[in-house]
């Protein structure tokens, strides 16, 4: 028996249909959209300019920033009473690297009241050996002599510093016991906005990180008294409690 053109065509169409079905992204069928989170950095109202920007902290101490990096993890969207846990990804935001300041997550479409995340890395990942991706311990955010992640790193210099070359260096972290410096941040949108995610669309949430929150909160971090902090402990934890107030949602934009 010889196959005619029609049979071959039908055969190919069936194969094609099967392939399409198999390879098509499942998300297209679900009621899902994308949330993009974008970080900008400032000192009060002025944009943060690494190295050259000159700023003043609430104690009148003058400083510059050469490096600012921190971990964002455990992102959740809160939906009036419920909280929706998004993939437990880890993001390393680096003020010197624009690509690191933005990331997108697929989420169920809906209306959300607030956004929650952790600054730092949960204790499990601190004790489970060599990780990869953002948690690669060779990214300069891991203490090699005292295993554990640096959650937040700010380096620069200040005329108020008594440290070598007037340096300032804050490497904050610690996951164990009372000195656990992991901080939860809960951000509501400004005014009476809500975070609305539409099906197959992108909503961008702009978060500004105001460096000056680092210095003053429940703890007074004066450069003259503490130009550097590079170990976990209760002081690090107090500094972490200050910097968790750095973040605010400045705008929400749907595309």
């Amino acid at each position: 028996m010889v196959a005619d053109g029609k049979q071959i065509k039908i055969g190919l169409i069936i194969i094609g249909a099967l392939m399409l079905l198999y390879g098509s992204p499942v998300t297209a069928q679900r009621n899902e959209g994308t949330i993009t989170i974008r970080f900008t950095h400032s000192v009060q109202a002025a944009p943060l300019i690494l190295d050259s920007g000159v700023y003043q902290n609430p104690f009148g101490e003058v400083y510059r920033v050469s490096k600012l990096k921190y971990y964002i993890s455990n992102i959740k969207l809160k939906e009036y009473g419920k909280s929706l846990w998004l993939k437990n990804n880890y993001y390393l935001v680096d003020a010197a690297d624009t690509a690191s300041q933005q990331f997108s997550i697929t989420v169920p479409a809906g209306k959300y009241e607030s956004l929650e995340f952790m600054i730092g890395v949960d204790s499990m990942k601190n004790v489970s050996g060599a990780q990869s991706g953002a948690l690669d311990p060779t990214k300069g955010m891991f203490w090699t002599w005292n295993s554990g992640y640096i959650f937040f790193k700010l380096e620069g210099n200040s005329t108020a510093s008594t440290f070598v070359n007037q340096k300032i260096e804050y490497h904050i972290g610690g996951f164990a016991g009372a000195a656990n410096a992991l901080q939860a941040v809960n951000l509501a949108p400004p005014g009476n906005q809500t975070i609305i995610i539409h099906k197959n669309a992108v909503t961008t949430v702009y978060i500004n990180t105001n460096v000056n929150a680092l210095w003053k909160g429940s703890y007074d971090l004066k450069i003259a008294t503490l130009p550097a902090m590079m170990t976990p402990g209760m002081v690090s934890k107090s500094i972490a409690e200050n910097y968790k107030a750095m973040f605010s949602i400045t705008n929400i934009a749907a595309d």
Partner: protein
Amino acid sequence: MKRVIILLLIFFIVAFTFISATHSLPGPKPHPLKLNIPPGWPKPAKDIFAGNPLTEEGFQLGKKLFYDGRLSKDGNFPCASCHQQFAAFATYDHDFSHGYNNLFTTRNAPPLFNLAWSPLLHWDGGINHIEVQPLAPLTAPNEMAENADSVLKKLRKDTAYVRLFKAAFGTPVINSQRMLKALAQFTGSMVSSNSKYDKVMRGEAKFTYAEDEGYKLFKAHCAHCHTEPLFTDFSFRNNGIDANDYLKDYGRMRITNDKNDSLKFKVPSLRNVALTFPYMHDGRLYSLGQVMEFYSTGININIPTLDSSLKKRVPMTNVQQNNLIYFLYTLTDTAFVKNPRFAQ
């Protein structure tokens, strides 16, 4: 119909070759290994290989890395330069080990074996997982003085490594996680359990009179810290070694910030102790004779954190000290220090 079938076949063959060309297909599966837990030993408190399945290929890759000078900045300081097999992987006859740029380490290099049982590594317990341990020597300016990115670049250029990483992990990707896991497979599978002491315990050999007397002393005065069969209970204690004025190393306190931990160090295993001189975290005692004198008369009883069991020191006659040393000699595991499996 035949033609349809032939066409379909051709289609699948083309599709398959296309897929296999674009996705680098994993090679043959690596061969699983099991950690050798000697009969009668406790199980390790945590499974260091839980996220890092031990395989022959992973072990071999780890061994190559351990002996490779390229892991250090100038090529001269592989792990093995400080961890020498004939000294049970301690640095033979050195209080401090040589590192990059004529610098020295600030602690005595401990021997490496039975690490799978050790919940925390380093003298102060600062390292919480064997996989992240190599980051410390790799990046320390007085040890290998390197950074991981530059090491990884060197490894990626070497086709032998590309092959070994693929054999161990399925794909030829070379990253820090894989390098660290492979090193952990090598160092974590070193088990020392074949000393004369072990043979006596298994009924295959007998202690001499002096060794037996020494063993009795050991059980009475030492075993509550240097606990059998690993000869350590992995706790952090002060055994009467006072602060080194020059190094100002307060041990465990650096990690916990707790002054009750001042001058406490990890109780070292005494297996292979005849090979690991000099002794203590700063290598201040050169011989087992000096160690005996120290426990007999030298313990600094004014250290507030001194372990309560040593407050009266451990006065021993010369004969007792010698017997105890004879016992410690029975902890040497010649089969381990000569085992070709761990040799370069």
